[in-house]
């Protein structure tokens, strides 16, 4: 805590300003004619020395285990100085903070911190005390979390009930013809409220965090008057969390069952059974799982054995041809297989074993490198209602023959989903409920209104879909890449590369899109330039967020010449050259005059006096780099700034750096915690009015402000 204040001189920046003393000393030295200089200097030095000794004694007392005594010492010192007409030391509130911090009991600590805050301490101490009181204290933080959580639940319930009433879509205009249409909004509002009421008591991340913080407090220090209430809260939240965990686990198991993922279902449901009070809830899904597992096991077992009524050759001639066919097949020689299969088919066209021979024909063709004919044979066989016909269909759907079909099917599915999104919007349960509510409200008139109602929504969604593909392209990409990996030189390779280029472009993966587009062998330079432009734009966006932004931007400017992104990167590099070291802007230096002193940056105060005739620091201030201080000064003419560099020795650099880091830390600590976008009086107004143009039309609705969840650890509870 005291390190922050550096020397005693610096700590007295306000009451006993070091700068004041420095200026005073300078004036005394510069103006000897004023007289009594030695007396004033001597007085200042003596006062400083006495003060340091008294503060040192108080600190020793505090560190010796008597911080309250140290506080009393400093209070006495302040009183003494007050009687002499001197300013207080300004260290008493720091000592009070120290004394409060070492109190072993929470309740006593809280009282001490509240007393300290009542005494209007300096901003740094106030910030530290408030942090200790509101955020370091787990119970206080948990109480606030729960209060905010309750507020947000109520606010969301009301806001969601009001919002549908403020949507002005095409329905409103039709209401002139049929006022009943307006009831749609009311039904929407009621339906939304019903859904929200159903989910009202769902465990929230804030409650999870509150539970952890209450538990932590009890483990750390149970000797608090709030312990009974805290224990009650822990029990209530713990039970709620256990119920939520049980429900989530059973839901995961049930979803896995629905998806026929029995291994995941078994894991989740077994886990659910072990959870406290969860066995009953997991019982039914467990029964379903057992049944499905038994069915799967039976099916797998069945697949291993020949059928009880396995087909046997009708006579010895057929048996002989069948054996020849089997031998040719097991040897895998396409010529012999084809010959044996054809012989069997010709000799025994009506045999029940004939589908097997047709399967061998398909295999022989494929092994001989005639895949299209093999596919034709399989397609023909797949129509056969025999067991071998099912096998042929399975092969057509499998990795060998089904890849191109699956690839095209994935593309078709993607197109259908995009169209569905544009026409109908999202298809989650909530949207379905809204639609049902609106249709229910407008009854048979729905048909006539749907067209008008959705024009705006369709246009909005079409715009969105054009800008960013709303549907995942991953299935197309996976299928296409797999196909190319298996048959990199196939007849359909060019087509697959082209389609993959489109899919990657839609997915925003421009590098891969470019690679596949070039691989088609028929690339149009305009399309290549367009993809390169998009790639450069994306890289530029990434670069802006990267700590290595200057390097990345230089690379974009070099490698994507001619694109908009390259121009933007060049401009950014020009306007914001890379800065190394610690930058102390002019405003910061003005706010922390101690930084100018000889124990810090050792700068002439006239550089900040606003008079350009004696030199003036520009807004960029100074930059402290390795053993060097760079001053950016205002200059007349062009350029309007000039840079002056001063070398620093090791000791000067160490002092300057320590002082600069201290000032920056203080700035950070005393910064206004509210968002920069938050208006001055905004926190006093609990409501807002929001307007938007969206998929459902134009919306204007008032609402109650919710409280943001800004815990630094919130990701641990979501």
């Amino acid at each position, binding site marked *: 805590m005291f390190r922050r204040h550096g020397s005693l001189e610096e700590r007295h920046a306000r009451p006993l300003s070091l700068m004041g003393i420095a200026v005073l000393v300078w004036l005394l030295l510069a103006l000897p004619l004023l007289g009594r200089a030695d007396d004033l200097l001597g007085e200042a030095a003596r006062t400083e020395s006495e003060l340091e000794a008294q503060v040192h004694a108080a600190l020793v007392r505090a560190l010796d285990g008597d911080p309250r005594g140290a506080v009393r010492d400093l209070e006495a010192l302040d009183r003494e100085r007050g009687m002499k007409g001197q300013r207080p030391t300004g260290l008493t509130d720091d000592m009070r903070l120290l004394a409060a911090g070492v109190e072993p009991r929470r309740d006593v600590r809280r009282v001490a911190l509240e007393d300290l805050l009542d005494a209007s301490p300096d901003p740094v101490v106030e910030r530290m005390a408030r942090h200790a009181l509101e955020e370091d204290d787990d119970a206080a933080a948990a109480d606030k979390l729960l209060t905010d959580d309750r507020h947000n639940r109520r606010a969301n319930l009301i806001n969601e009930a009001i919002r549908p009433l403020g949507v002005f879509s095409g329905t409103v205009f039709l209401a002139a013809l049929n006022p009943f249409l307006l009831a749609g909004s009311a039904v929407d509002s009621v339906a939304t409220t019903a859904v929200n009421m159903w989910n009202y008591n769902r465990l929230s991340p804030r409650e999870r965090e509150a539970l952890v913080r209450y538990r932590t407090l009890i483990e750390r220090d149970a000797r608090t008057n709030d312990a009974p209430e805290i224990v009650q809260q822990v029990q209530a939240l713990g039970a709620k969390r256990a119920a939520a965990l049980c429900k989530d686990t059973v839901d995961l198991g049930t979803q896995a069952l629905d998806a026929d993922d029995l291994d995941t279902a078994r894991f989740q449901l077994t886990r659910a059974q072990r959870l406290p009070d969860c066995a009953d809830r997991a019982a039914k899904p467990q029964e379903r799982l*057992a*049944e499905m*597992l*038994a*069915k799967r*096991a*039976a*099916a*797998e*077992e*069945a*697949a*291993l*054995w*020949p*059928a*009880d*009524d*396995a*087909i046997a050759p009708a006579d010895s001639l057929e048996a002989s041809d*069948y*054996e020849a*066919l*089997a*031998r040719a*097949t*097991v*040897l*895998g020689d396409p010529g012999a297989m084809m010959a044996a299969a054809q012989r069997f088919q010709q000799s025994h066209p009506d045999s029940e*074993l004939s*589908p*097997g*021979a047709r*399967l*061998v024909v398909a*295999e022989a063709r*494929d*092994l001989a490198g005639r895949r299209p004919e093999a596919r034709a044979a399989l397609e023909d066989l797949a129509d056969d209602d*025999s*067991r*071998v016909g*099912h*096998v042929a269909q*399975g*092969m057509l*759907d*499998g*990795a*060998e023959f089904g890849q191109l079909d699956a690839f095209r099917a994935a593309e078709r599915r993607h197109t259908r989903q995009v169209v569905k999104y544009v026409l109908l919007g999202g298809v989650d349960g909530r949207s379905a409920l809204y639609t049902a509510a609106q249709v229910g409200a407008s009854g048979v008139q729905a048909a006539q209104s749907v067209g008008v109602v959705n024009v705006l929504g369709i246009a909005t969604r079409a715009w969105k879909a054009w800008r960013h593909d709303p549907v995942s392209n*991953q299935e197309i*990409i*996976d299928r*296409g*890449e*797999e196909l190319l*990996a*298996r048959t990199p030189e196939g007849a359909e390779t060019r087509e697959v590369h082209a389609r993959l280029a489109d899919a990657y472009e839609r997915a925003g993966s421009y590098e*891969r899109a470019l690679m596949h587009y070039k691989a088609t062998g028929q690339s149009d330079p305009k399309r290549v330039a367009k993809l390169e432009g998009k790639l450069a734009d994306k890289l530029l966006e990434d670069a802006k967020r990267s700590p290595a932004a200057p390097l990345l931007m230089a690379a974009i400017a070099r490698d994507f010449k001619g694109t908009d992104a390259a121009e933007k990167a060049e401009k950014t590099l020009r306007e914001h050259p890379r800065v190394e070291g610690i930058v102390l802007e002019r405003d910061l230096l003005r706010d922390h005059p101690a930084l100018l002193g000889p124990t810090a940056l050792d700068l002439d105060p006239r550089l900040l006096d606003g008079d350009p005739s004696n030199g003036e620091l520009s807004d960029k201030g100074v930059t402290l780099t390795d053993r060097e201080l760079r001053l950016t000064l205002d200059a007349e003419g062009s350029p309007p700034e000039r840079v002056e560099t001063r070398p620093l020795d090791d000791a000067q650099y160490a002092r300057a750096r320590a002082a600069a880091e201290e000032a920056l830390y203080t700035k950070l600590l005393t910064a206004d915690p509210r968002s920069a976008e938050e208006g001055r009086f905004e926190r006093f107004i609990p409501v807002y009015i929001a307007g938007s143009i969206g998929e459902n039309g134009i919306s204007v609705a008032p609402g109650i402000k919710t409280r943001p969840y800004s815990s630094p650890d919130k990701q641990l509870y979501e």
Partner: protein
Amino acid sequence: MRMPSFLLAAILAVGASPLAVRAGDASGATAPYEDLIEVLATLTWHLRDDVYRFAPPKDPTGHDLYKLALSRLESWEKRFPGRMRDVTTLGRAQALERLGEYQRAADAYKEVASLIDSPLAARAAEPAARARAFAEAAALPEDGDSVEAQLNALRRKLDAWGKLVEQYKDTPAGSVAMVEEERLERATTRLVVDHRRDLEHGDETAEKALRFLIQKHADSKNLPAHVLRLGDLYAEQAREYVSHNERPLAFQEDEFLSRADRALDTYHKVATWDGAQEKPEGQACFAAMEAWKNATLARYR
């Protein structure tokens, strides 16, 4: 003969559950087969598959086709002992060879070769010799009393498989030999990685070994897995850095970041590898590493 574990599990599950259905009730892809040709055709169709570059073939129900064919042929032999024995034995030998059971495959080929009356006897001789050679190489020891001894054993075994890779490089069996060579090189690399602290310049050697594996097997189906293992090594080195510099003033953020980001970069390759089976694992590794990195940085800031 060993019973396949999934078969055993299936039998137990059926026996244990009162709701088990009769095998004959199964339909579609899992229905009992009516014709031996169906089993043979689906097996031999995939005997030329490049099992080094691509994952083993699956049947429509998602089961390993070689394993399924082997089980079905064994079931046929139990149900109809002696019926087309030469055909089923040769099919079994082929499936066993693809499954890496070279000695059992060699025995089955030999059995077919000994059936003088069968036209397949003469055709079984060549694969029998190949399976024997594979079985001999596979029987060479891989372990030893020390790391040095293990490395020497692996080197000898690799030499043996290297010769077979060369000998069968233009045949379907070549990919089987390459699978074995890759497996041994992976085992060697793992040994080096696991014992890198005992070796001189162990970290560098381990990294070189993994990079060699990645470069040499750039065409392998396991390439993404090899890249993940390199990521694991980098991640482990980042963790070691933290454990060796645990005190706040010893911890250098830049040093830590260079190690952690190297692991993240490597995981990211697999996390964005479209079509790779290991993609979800890569994404999970990336997410786990990133979470650990952020937690570590938060701890030291």
